[in-house]
């Protein structure tokens, strides 16, 4: 076998131009596929990073009614949903894959917020404990955070994010100013921002809305003060920070399962804790982009098919050219299998070299595409391996007919051939 491979290299290098032209079809096909796959992978990683944020790995587990999140700004508290105890919190943080967790309450689309005469529209209000900011990846960038005293003393203080600052304070320093939230005065003591600088790349209008929604005004209150303006027995949501991005799905699910065991809302109620699965959302978006791009892969495969036919053509010519050699080898006792194997090896060595060159060209092409079209690319190792193996298979498939033809040559006809 090694002998055959060596002979194949010898044969290929003795006809350099011909071999190169034969490989060209394979080279172009593989290069196109590698470039496309790299672009798809690049886009997918971009989507994943956009949605999940790189390095944060947090999953929100929220109480839902059916498919929708329960918003207690408008809804009353359902029976049978207990407040999450410290003990449950401890159980959650001991789950596999959970780094830490925090419990919080949340009201969406709150309009009853004023600074002087200026109204803040559609803000999200969070009632947070002392672990929330660290877990969800926030840091105080101006002013100060909540002190233990703020929690114990039911201080009417709040933290706001940059969106609130620019929406109602403008150029004023917000620290020390008073916000009227649900008709109660709260003193702004700090401004928070997300630690990981999260800059989603916006490619479409859909993307824009998705990130815009995530980027709305946020106001944080200490959890202890929550019952003053809202209800004391309101159910909480949980944020679990997973140890890595891939365990986010399982962490979300196991946390939701744990919380659901404490629900006593009855069999037929539609209340349940559900994890917001960003990974799944990302996958859905990736599938969409992949399915458009997989059409391109099919088109590139046609080029591989054409390349394969080119290889077959040249191998048939080669068999005719080397009729005497085949005849001689048969006369010397070479069996059919050996002759066929020799030509099969030659065809697959030829296409494998073509595949390797194609991979190199494809990586280069992907870089050029990323520079020119400003799309991210990521080189996929499995794609490279599959490409080379596939090009080898192309050689075997399209080398089959020429090999069988060679093996079937009658030795006397072959020897007599001039």
């Amino acid at each position, binding site marked *: 076998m090694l*002998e055959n491979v060596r002979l194949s290299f*010898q*044969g290929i290098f*003795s006809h350099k131009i011909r071999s190169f032209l034969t490989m060209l079809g394979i080279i172009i096909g593989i290069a196109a596929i590698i470039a496309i796959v790299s672009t798809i992978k690049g886009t997918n990683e971009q989507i994943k990073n956009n949605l999940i944020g790189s390095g944060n790995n947090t999953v929100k587990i929220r109480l839902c009614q059916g498919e929708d999140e329960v918003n207690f700004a408008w809804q009353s508290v359902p029976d049978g949903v207990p407040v999450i105890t410290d003990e449950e919190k401890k159980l959650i943080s001991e789950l596999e894959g959970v780094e830490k967790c925090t419990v919080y309450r949340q009201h969406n689309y709150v309009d009853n917020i004023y600074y002087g005469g200026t109204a803040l529209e559609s803000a999200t209000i969070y009632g947070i404990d002392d672990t929330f900011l660290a877990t969800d990846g926030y840091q105080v960038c101006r002013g100060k955070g909540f002190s233990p005293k703020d929690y114990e003393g039911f201080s009417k203080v709040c933290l706001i994010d940059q969106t609130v600052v620019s929406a109602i304070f403008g150029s004023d320093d917000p620290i020390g100013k008073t916000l009227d939230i649900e008709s109660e005065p709260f003193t702004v003591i700090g401004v928070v921002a997300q630690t990981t600088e999260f800059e989603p790349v916006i490619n479409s209008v859909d993307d824009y809305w998705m990130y815009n929604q995530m980027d709305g005004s946020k106001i944080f209150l200490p959890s202890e003060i929550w019952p003053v303006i809202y209800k004391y027995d309101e159910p909480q949501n949980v944020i679990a920070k997973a140890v890595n991005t891939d365990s986010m799905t399982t962490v979300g699910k196991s946390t939701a399962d744990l919380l659901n065991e404490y629900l006593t809302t009855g069999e037929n109620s539609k209340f349940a804790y559900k994890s917001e699965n960003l990974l799944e959302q990302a996958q859905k978006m990736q599938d969409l982009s992949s399915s458009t791009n997989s059409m391109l892969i099919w088109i590139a495969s046609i080029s591989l098919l054409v390349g394969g036919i080119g290889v077959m053509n040249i191998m048939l010519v080669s068999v005719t050219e080397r009729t*005497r*050699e085949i*005849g*001689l*080898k*048969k*006369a*010397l*006792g*070479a*069996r*059919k299998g*050996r002759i066929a194997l020799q030509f099969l090896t030659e065809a697959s060595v030829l296409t494998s070299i073509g595949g390797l060159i194609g991979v190199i060209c494809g990586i280069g092409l992907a870089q050029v595409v990323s520079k020119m079209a400003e799309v991210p690319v990521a080189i996929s190792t499995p794609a490279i391996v599959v490409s080379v193996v596939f090009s080898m298979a192309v050689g075997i498939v399209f080398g089959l007919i020429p090999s069988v033809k060679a093996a079937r040559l009658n*030795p*006397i006809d072959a*020897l007599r051939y001039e």
Partner: protein
Amino acid sequence: MSDVILQLKDVDKSYYIDKMPVPVLKKVNFKVMNGEYVAIMGPSGSGKSTMMNIVGCLDKQTAGEFIFDGVDIAKCHDKQLSIIRNAKIGFVFQNFNLLPRQSALENVELPLLYAGVRKSERRRRAKEALARVGLEDRMYHKPTQLSGGQKQRVAIARAIVNKPRLLLADEPTGALDTKSGEQVMDLFGELNSEGVTVVMITHAMEIAERAKRMVFIRDGELFDDDRQFHHEPHISSPVIDLSKEGTDDEISEQREETAAE
């Protein structure tokens, strides 16, 4: 040793051109004993190449029986024929048939490769065979770097490397000058004296005279008697007459046979 190495009994061979059978060999009877040195002589078109193909197990006869080393060749499969050719027959061709991109050594190793001999052993035996034909200093040369005589000696080394029972040469001096031809013929003589059976096909009298026995083939008929051969009046200008009356009878006979099958 006087055992029979090959025997042809009433062997017929026809080729089909546009489905019409063209008889090439007619009722050939031929027997070679172990250690013999036989020259098959005949003009071109006489059927001697066909004869060589059948004796070399490259082709099968249309009718009759061919026993090689005790094996009925007509009953052998392709694979068995390959093994017989590889192990028991050494071929020497007029135009050498060396692989141009391989060194002399690699060319000589080829039959051993097909016999499944291990690499180190192949090397050793190929070197031995090349030394036997006096080319130990040309082992790593490509055929293009060798003279015609040297090429033919490489081919002979290739033919004897498997220690075959029969050395089959088809016009081995046909493409050589007189001096190289002499050397090659000397080599055949030596190999025969060492016990290798040699069957040589040639049309040159001075080459054939080196053999211990000569047979003559003309119009597909073999005369296994050198006296008869010497009495033939038209050796140098044979008349090839394909439209002989007897031929038609044979054709119809064969057609009946085919129909019966």
